[in-house]
């Protein structure tokens, strides 16, 4: 599944043994893209698990995609000069380079310095691509005027928050969009949605699979996580169906602009 990311955030396993099992399920299910961050506390265990599983299943480094982030406290601590943290995380992840490095929250006070450091890190090859999480078109416009646009944008996106403006901007500017909380933690409005139930029946899939397919069919890379290996295997089976235009519109119509994470709280003055 080249479009699926496996996330190791708040809802994922934290210990090595538990994480290794779910990563194993993801790798055998065909997932090659993995997402982490310092605040998740999973960088080291993810690195160890990926190292072991890559050897066991013969997955080369070129086939893997590993991305991490720089957290607000790191931006604050070094006033944006975050190279030291990147060198530390590369050791934790047992890698020579990151496929992508993302700013976790665009904290206004430290954003410009951090972004300048990101550009330098990409130029020396420590990160192949650079990006920003939790941004809106307003911030992207500002970045475009000041230096350059990110290659990746990661946002909270799901049927209750379709982010049309951001998607359009990114599509026009060839920016990859990743969606975290792609299932909105199976909010009741998703779990009990009649539209989703009907589409699930029509496609012979479950609601989670339908929503993940909706992300992919609208040009977005979903980052999902689960502690259950059976669920992970289920979500890896998305290649054998796709949604028609009408089904996509029905799912998009669930949009309520609902945010689980308020950007302004974690990133004041956002």
């Amino acid at each position, binding site marked *: 599944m080249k479009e699926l990311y496996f996330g190791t955030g708040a809802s994922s396993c934290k210990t090595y043994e538990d994480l290794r099992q779910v990563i194993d399920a993801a790798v055998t299910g065909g997932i090659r893209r993995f997402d982490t961050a310092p605040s998740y506390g999973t960088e080291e265990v993810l690195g160890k698990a990926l190292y072991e599983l890559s050897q066991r299943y013969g997955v080369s480094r070129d086939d893997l995609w590993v991305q991490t982030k720089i957290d607000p*406290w790191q931006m604050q601590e070094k006033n944006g000069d975050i190279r030291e943290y990147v060198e530390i995380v590369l050791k934790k992840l047992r890698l020579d380079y990151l496929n992508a490095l993302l700013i976790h929250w665009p904290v206004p006070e430290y954003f410009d310095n951090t972004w300048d450091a990101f550009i330098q890190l990409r130029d020396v090859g420590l990160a192949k691509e650079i990006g920003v999480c939790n941004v809106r078109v*307003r911030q992207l416009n500002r970045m475009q005027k000041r230096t350059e646009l990110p290659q990746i944008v990661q946002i909270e996106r799901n049927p209750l928050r379709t982010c049309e403006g951001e998607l359009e901007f990114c599509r026009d500017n060839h920016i990859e969009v990743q969606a975290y909380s792609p299932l909105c933690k199976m909010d009741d409005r998703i779990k009990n949605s009649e539209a989703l139930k009907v589409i699930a029946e029509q496609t012979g899939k479950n609601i989670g699979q339908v929503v993940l397919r909706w992300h992919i069919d609208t040009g977005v890379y979903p980052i999902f996580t689960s502690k259950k290996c059976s669920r992970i295997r289920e979500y890896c089976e998305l290649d054998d169906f796709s949604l028609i235009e009408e089904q996509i519109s029905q799912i998009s119509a669930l949009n309520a*602009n*609902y945010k*689980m994470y*308020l*950007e*302004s*709280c974690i990133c*004041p003055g956002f």
Partner: protein
Amino acid sequence: MSRILIKIKNHKKKLCLILVLIIILVCGIVMTNYYLAGFALIATLGLMINFLTVKKMQSGASVFYAGSKIRNIDTLIIGEPCSLDELASDKDIVLQITAPGRSPGASYEILRHTFGILDEGCGEVVLVVKKGNAETGFSLFDIPYLQLSPISVKRLGLEGLQKKSKLPLVFAPIRTMQMLLSVGKNKKPRETVVPQEMLKFCQERNITIRCMAVDWNRSEEG
């Protein structure tokens, strides 16, 4: 989960302390040691008032956590307590973040932390200031909103105030009582000029803002 466990632990600790003080009170009365009984009574009351205030402060900020379903509200009122009659219609979803003596500077910083809860494109902020108050300082009643961001306390140099916010009755006794008794909730606000910085902030984010002033020297309460 850890946050919940800490809360339970603290809650148990407080209940134990109150229980001990009640036992001292009963013993004091039985042993006719009225000084001891009086001390225990005052300490128990104090602890309960402190507990209620902290709970009130924290519950106001809890709607901003990730689990909350409260989003896309119509009106966000920040600043001094006042009468809500003319600030929002009955149909509006209103969130009030007010505390007696809140400075305009603190209100601005709270706005920077909380505006994301507004309905995008049509939400309104109402800033309520005390007439003549142009302060920029923070009080311990601002902490629950400022600590929503993991880096704001350090950025604003509020580490000391954060510790004090656990004991509002000790460090801000008058404001604590004002807050518990909802003093000022009937004060009628009058429209005034929006501070330039806040106006610019809101315009950039497509948010409507109004500024209201309450006059504590006028007796229009009740």
